[in-house]
């Protein structure tokens, strides 16, 4: 008999719903039928081991990917990736992308009239180490306007994409900065109903990570789903 150890399920309040009308794009893009509960089989508890063979030395330093230095506030973002049992998620790929210091993405569809920075692309990747740690050096992204509602602005954020150990642990999220005055007005952030859950997306300023005369440090730990304690016969 093949033993498949399933992963724990999310508590609904810890995650955003599919449909959140204040975030207008969800209206035509959110399923209305209930999701069908999928028991975990080999298809769900396995997943791609991806991104390990093509890391470049400057992939985790977004300030060194061009001939010159980008403009803006240099920051170091670090943290651990753990599962919900507190075990480190080792050697897993983290991809990040973000706007530049002026709030403009290096992307043909971003038409915000803020300057592009020839020395900043805004994309990076890193693998977690044996303790689940990661670190990026980058520039603090700017806030930027979007068309969701009149005078809509996104709080400054960095997009994170993680694979984890299985198909079910895949996570795409956003990291925010402490004290941002735009949180209250941002329907993407507010789509998570539970205040404590929202707080999990806000990085913490960290003096220990801060490098004297160089860069401010922010700590952002990420928790992925972990295994149920008991294996099921399947």
């Amino acid at each position, binding site marked *: 008999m093949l033993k498949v150890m399933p992963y724990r399920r999310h*508590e609904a309040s810890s995650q955003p719903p599919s449909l959140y009308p204040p975030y207008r794009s969800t209206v035509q893009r959110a399923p209305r039928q209930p999701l069908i509960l999928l028991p975990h089989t080999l298809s769900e508890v396995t997943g791609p081991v991806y991104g390990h063979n093509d890391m470049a030395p400057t992939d985790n330093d977004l300030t060194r990917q061009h001939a010159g230095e980008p403009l803006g506030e240099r920051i170091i973002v670090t943290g651990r990736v753990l599962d919900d049992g507190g075990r480190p998620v080792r050697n897993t790929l983290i991809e990040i992308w973000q706007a530049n210091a002026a709030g403009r993405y290096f992307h043909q569809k971003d038409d915000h009239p803020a300057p592009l920075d020839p020395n900043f692309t805004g994309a990076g990747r890193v693998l977690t180490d044996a303790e689940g740690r990661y670190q990026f050096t980058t520039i603090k992204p700017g806030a930027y306007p979007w068309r969701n509602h009149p005078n809509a602005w996104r709080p400054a954020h960095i997009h994170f994409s993680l694979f984890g150990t299985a*198909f079910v642990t895949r996570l795409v999220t956003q990291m925010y900065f402490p004290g941002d005055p735009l949180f209250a007005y941002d329907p993407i952030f507010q789509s998570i109903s539970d205040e404590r859950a929202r707080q999990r997306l806000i990085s913490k300023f960290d003096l220990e990570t801060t490098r004297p005369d160089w860069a401010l440090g922010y700590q952002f730990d990420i928790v992925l789903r972990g295994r149920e304690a008991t294996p099921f016969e399947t």
Partner: protein
Amino acid sequence: MDLTPTPSQTAGPYLHLGCTRLHSVPCIAGPQAKGQHLRLVCRVLDGEGNPLNDAMIEIWQADAEGRYQHSDDPQSGNCDPHCGGFGRMPTDEQGRCTFETIKPGRVPEANGLQAPHLNVSVFARGILQRLATRIYFEGDPANGECPILALVPEERRCTLLARPDPNHAGEWHFDIRLCGNDETVFFDV
């Protein structure tokens, strides 16, 4: 430390910058992979039937013998080295993206064998949490005995079927309808 899983957020309209600009994966299984080779054309549509030109699709699948390239599959040691099992692509202006792959074998499950299927994730602006679905193959005799497909109401199973293109041999099409008429079945994984 708080060990509740981190909430998901949308990948947004600029996901290409971090995910597919340099790191798209159109080839899930190479030309030397064993099995029935196919070109899989996926299309993503919104509730009004408009194509999504800013989505990303990821695929995770087994090799032709139903083995995953992953340490949790007890058969992974024999897995076809030419079938990595992973692909991801951004959708184009028509909402389409194409993968080169093979038809996977049957993967074991508690009560028998699952029918050949691909595991699919959809990311896009307006999708707050990754949407997970499966692609099965129209006409496969195993579909009728797949314990997972049996969990789906019969009238909705058709939304999980890829169909062969009558004009292009080896090409299969799969439409993902996020909501509205013929909404695709999505799974709580």
